[in-house]
């Protein structure tokens, strides 16, 4: 018998728990020659801001052991462009589309949320208060519980869409932020965003990245991400989208067992364009092998 794979992420019904992580999958179109994106539970699109942004200086990406550092800096065409040029495409997809938003001020987040409210094809918002690659806003909101709560409230007030808040691992205690955001009305949480890191070019004696520091992602960060999901699952009752270094179904299952209801594949897409579908197939196979009829039974099972 085919196990149930449907999960509910704070009101977003995903037909299966596999999605993509923001900034690693463009707007979906870029990967459609390789993956039938309609088979995914959802896609999360690139971080979107009020105004168009050019992003940071190059180089913007450097490899590190089992990981990459990126400092894209939220390059994006702006929310109006997204609504004008992508909404119709999103509406035609047979998967949920979640838009990741980022701002410099609380008001920016509220205005973004208001603009996206009711846009056809947009199933929910992922609120990025954890970007390490921008000077203003970004991680600053994600590392202070009061600011994180304020952003969450402002977004909730501005939209009827499900609101997922994306947390940063660059904090002393992620559960404090999770609780603040939950109390402020978030419908779900995404974790983790990238770890703040850097690399130095030994020959040039200069930082490798144009922007000096960047965000670490990929397999290297998986243990930190699984730990964050584990801790947050113990703290708040919200559904969690787990991410950070997922390459295989085994990796994804670690997150689910730690407490994630859904999982996002990020960096792995760059290496294996069909990673999402392979992760999905592997999860389904595991459920069958282990005779589990509903994926939701597995969520947080390692705590029991």
């Amino acid at each position, binding site marked *: 018998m085919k196990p149930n794979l449907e999960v509910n992420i704070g009101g977003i019904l995903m037909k299966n728990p596999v999605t993509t992580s923001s900034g690693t999958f463009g707007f979906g179109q870029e990967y459609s020659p390789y993956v039938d994106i309609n088979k995914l539970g959802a896609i999360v699109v690139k971080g979107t801001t009020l105004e168009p942004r050019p992003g940071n200086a190059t180089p*913007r990406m450097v490899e590190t052991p089992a990981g990459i550092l990126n400092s894209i800096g939220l390059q994006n065409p702006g929310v109006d462009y997204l609504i004008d040029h992508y909404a119709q495409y999103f509406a035609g997809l047979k998967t949920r589309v979640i838009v990741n938003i980022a701002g410099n001020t609380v008001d920016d987040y509220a205005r973004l949320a208001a603009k996206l409210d009711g846009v056809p094809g947009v199933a929910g918002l992922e609120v990025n208060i954890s970007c390490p690659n921008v000077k203003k806003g970004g991680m600053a909101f994600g590392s202070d519980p009061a600011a994180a709560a304020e952003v969450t409230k402002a977004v909730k007030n501005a939209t009827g869409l499900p609101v997922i808040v994306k947390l940063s691992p660059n904090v002393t205690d992620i559960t404090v932020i999770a609780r603040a955001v939950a109390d402020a009305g978030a419908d779900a949480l995404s974790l983790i965003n990238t770890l703040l890191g850097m690399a130095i070019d030994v020959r040039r004696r200069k930082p490798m990245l144009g922007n000096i520091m960047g965000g670490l992602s990929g397999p290297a960060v998986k243990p930190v991400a699984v730990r964050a999901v584990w801790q947050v699952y113990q703290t708040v009752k919200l559904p969690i989208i787990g991410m950070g270094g997922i390459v295989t179904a085994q990796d994804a299952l670690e997150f689910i067992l730690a407490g994630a209801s859904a999982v996002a594949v990020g960096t792995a897409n760059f*290496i294996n364009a069909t990673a999402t579908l392979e992760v999905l197939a592997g999860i389904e196979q595991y459920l069958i092998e282990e005779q589990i009829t509903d994926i939701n039974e597995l969520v947080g099972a390692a705590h029991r």
Partner: protein
Amino acid sequence: MSKVMDAKVLAVYPVAPETYYMELAAPDIARLAVPGQFVHVRCSDAQEPLLRRPLSIHMVSRPQGVLALLFRVVGKGTALLAQRQPGDSVNLMGPLGRGFTLPLPGSKVAVAAGGIGAAPLVFLVQELANLKCQVTVYVGARDKKNLLCDGQFAQLDAEVVIATDDGSLGFKGTVPELMRRHLDWRRTAMCYVCGPRAMMQEVSAMLSEADVPGEVSLEEKMGCGVGACLSCAVQIQHHGEISTKRVCADGPVFPSWQVVWE
């Protein structure tokens, strides 16, 4: 349409110091590719190095379904690739990117190749030959030993003019210096350039001066290779407005006069 595939290695051998030629069975790529496009290559099955490596399409043989690469070993990824043996398979994505704009048949065109930058230009000159263009290729290298593809260009009926930094073959100096002396701009319809950044910048400046249209093939560190991650940003100026373009999806070939160099 671009695909992901495992391609069998048919041959691999060194052609110059630290420089390898590799032939792969990749009929889909051979069929679809145009000059200037690239493939995104997984150099290891393990996670080290993690990312794919972009390599230009050096040549294709459509009837035989063969793709050829020409690459220099500069780090981990290319070193692992050079170790593959015939019969091994290599995971590829491609063809990717926007290639060169071909000129009107019969035009007189110039091609400037610096070092490993010659790699994509052989495929280009092949197509230019099909278009019966009158082609002059300026090939430069550090020295005679490191000179690449000059023979191939000649076989494709191009005029080949050589520059080496140390003067061990041809003109002693750089490709831009050579072009400045040798090239008759008035009769040149188009100029294609691939090589080190400084060389492409210098040739682009010359082209702008002479008001000759040109195209350059840029390099930038790549993540996805398909336009999704925005790693490979380059500043492009168009009608006075600067915008950020992606080398992988909007390029790697860009009009020489549009590139914001510094």
